[in-house]
């Protein structure tokens, strides 16, 4: 039972971390390599919330807002001039990631720090005691997923976004302001990354380079998932589950490699990954 909960909560964390990257990849067709840095921004936002003695639950919405704000700035200055050059945009976001973590080091110092968890203690689930915070993180992730489904299927922005994902030139021809869609998507993607950063902080620690391992796993998941949320959730569950199983039954060191290795295998066997192809 515990391992099932481990798999589900780990998959949820991977899903929420990868969602922001997927959203930007789907609409803008670029991989935002600053994703790890936005994760870190959200984490330090959670740290600041603890430092100012605010309610730790505030760190989540606060992280989203800060991430979105920085994303807006970044989109205007870095990404928009490079709309026609997606490869250069990818390189630029990688450089941006480095710049952001250096700014964080200047502002917060390079040592490892810790944020307070909003919730401590355990909950009894089907006879097993399990970490309450992990379960709450799972609930928040499900809420984010549902919120996204509603956004994509039920709003005008979501409709425009789907059109841009399918065929941007045609969408522009139909009169959709694709530049606005791109901007909103980028902002939401960055906000999501920051929210994910705030979510993972209470479980471990915060340091300027914490985003990099998550970026790599998120990148693998996005590559394997294609461009739908359902396939991302599926990928997170299967690959995340594999990571937990390998960590539990073999060693955590092998577990860390599982997602990357399995992604390579999946893409070799089925280039469309978990998507519709």
């Amino acid at each position, binding site marked *: 039972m515990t391992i099932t909960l481990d798999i589900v909560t780990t998959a949820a964390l991977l899903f929420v971390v990868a969602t922001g990257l997927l959203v930007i990849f789907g609409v803008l067709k670029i991989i935002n390599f600053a994703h790890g840095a936005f994760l870190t921004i959200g984490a330090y936002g959670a740290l600041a919330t603890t430092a100012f003695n605010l309610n730790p639950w505030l760190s989540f919405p606060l992280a989203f807002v800060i991430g979105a704000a920085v994303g807006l700035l970044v989109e205007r200055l870095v990404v928009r001039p490079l709309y026609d050059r997606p490869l250069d945009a990818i390189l630029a976001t990688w450089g941006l990631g480095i710049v952001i973590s250096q700014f964080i080091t200047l502002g917060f110092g390079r040592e490892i720090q810790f944020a307070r968890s909003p919730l*401590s203690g*355990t909950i009894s689930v089907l006879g097993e*005691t*399990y970490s309450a*915070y992990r379960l709450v993180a799972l609930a928040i992730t499900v809420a984010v997923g549902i919120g996204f489904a509603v956004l994509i299927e039920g709003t005008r922005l979501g409709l425009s976004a789907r059109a841009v994902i399918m065929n941007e030139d045609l969408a522009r021809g139909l009169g959709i302001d694709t530049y606005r869609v791109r901007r909103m998507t980028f902002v939401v993607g960055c906000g999501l990354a920051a929210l994910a950063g705030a979510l993972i902080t209470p479980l471990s620690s915060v340091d300027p380079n914490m985003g990099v391992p998550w970026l790599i796993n998120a990148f693998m998941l996005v590559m394997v998932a294609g461009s739908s949320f359902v396939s991302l959730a599926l990928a997170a569950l299967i690959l995340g589950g594999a990571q937990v199983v390998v960590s539990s039954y073999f060693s955590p060191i092998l577990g860390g490699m599982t997602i990357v290795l399995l992604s390579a295998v999946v893409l070799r066997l089925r280039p469309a990954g978990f998507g519709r192809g």
Partner: protein
Amino acid sequence: MFRSCLKGASGLVLCALLAAPSLAEGPIKIGVPVGLSGANSVVAPSVVQSAELAVEEINKAGGVLGRPLALEVADDASGAAGAQKAFDSLIFQKKVDALISMETSAARNAGLALVQRGKTPFIYTSFYEGRSCNPYLYVNAWVPEQQVPPIVDHFMKTNNAKSFFLIGSDYAFGRGMLQFTRAYIEKNGGKVVGEEYLPMDGSDWTSILSKLRASGADALITSTAGGAPNVTLTKQLRAAGITLPYGNLAVDEGTAKSMGADAEGIFISASYVTSIDTPANKKFLADMKAKFGDQLKTPNDLSVPEYEGVYAYKAAIEKAKSTKADDVIKALAEVSVDGPRGTIQMNKERHAPLTMYLGQVQADGSVKVIQAFKDVDPGDQCPNLK
């Protein structure tokens, strides 16, 4: 224009030449490579503070052989790659006269190669897994022979623990400590039902904690890298609701304080706790508070040996009447330091007999001493080193 520049330049050169003799002496440079980033970054500031206080006190009293001490701090990122860079810059660029520092075993092992090449005395002030031997290395902190028995004995006698689960960081220290612990447990009739490791920078203990729960162990003993891994492990341990007797071989008082309520109940075995009731310790704590005020990081078992290490170096230079490496190396075994941990002399195969304290962390982060063991012998650490 050019001729007047030439005149100015030659004038400067003349002045420099005249001033040169008085510049030749200069301060005695002590290099401090320490983990300002990475796993040790939680503890490193306290280590630097100890070194700074020692240097300030010594300089106020007239320095060493008439020369002041100067500190050069470098970041070794708590690992081998960073240590390579830090030691290289300290030994070959800054040309320090000695290295006195606390670091992870990975960093120490990487740095020793450079220490050997640069022939620089290295006083290692961190507790570690033992048996690290080098002609230029001295250690004034504890080794497993001094630290592990009190905790295991206590669990076996007081908690009737028969089965133990061991968790560590996957490098020399984690593996070395737990290897010794396993041997000691088995020699005393106990059983080890699990031994799990995470990389030094790993912070996701989920699967290991699930294994711990499934093992049915009576007690948990951990030996992670000092600093961050202790905090993440303890946080996740408490979040998972595990309340087994928990002995932590690698946590210091400062890190325990930063863990807050999660640290309550942890058993530690250390050569220094802030509650040591001696005039020397009380004076040390007062001086630290006076110098650093509310920026003070709790002095702990990883930072106090640094303070005493600087004094040991001073004593060795004064005994040898020189700063030359070979003279200092010889003298370091012969001098003793009276510090917050008592009188310490590194005369047992480059290691020091130490008084150890078995304690339990209280709810407010302080350590209650349960038992003290005077002048515990470090055992045979470097029998082949003469």
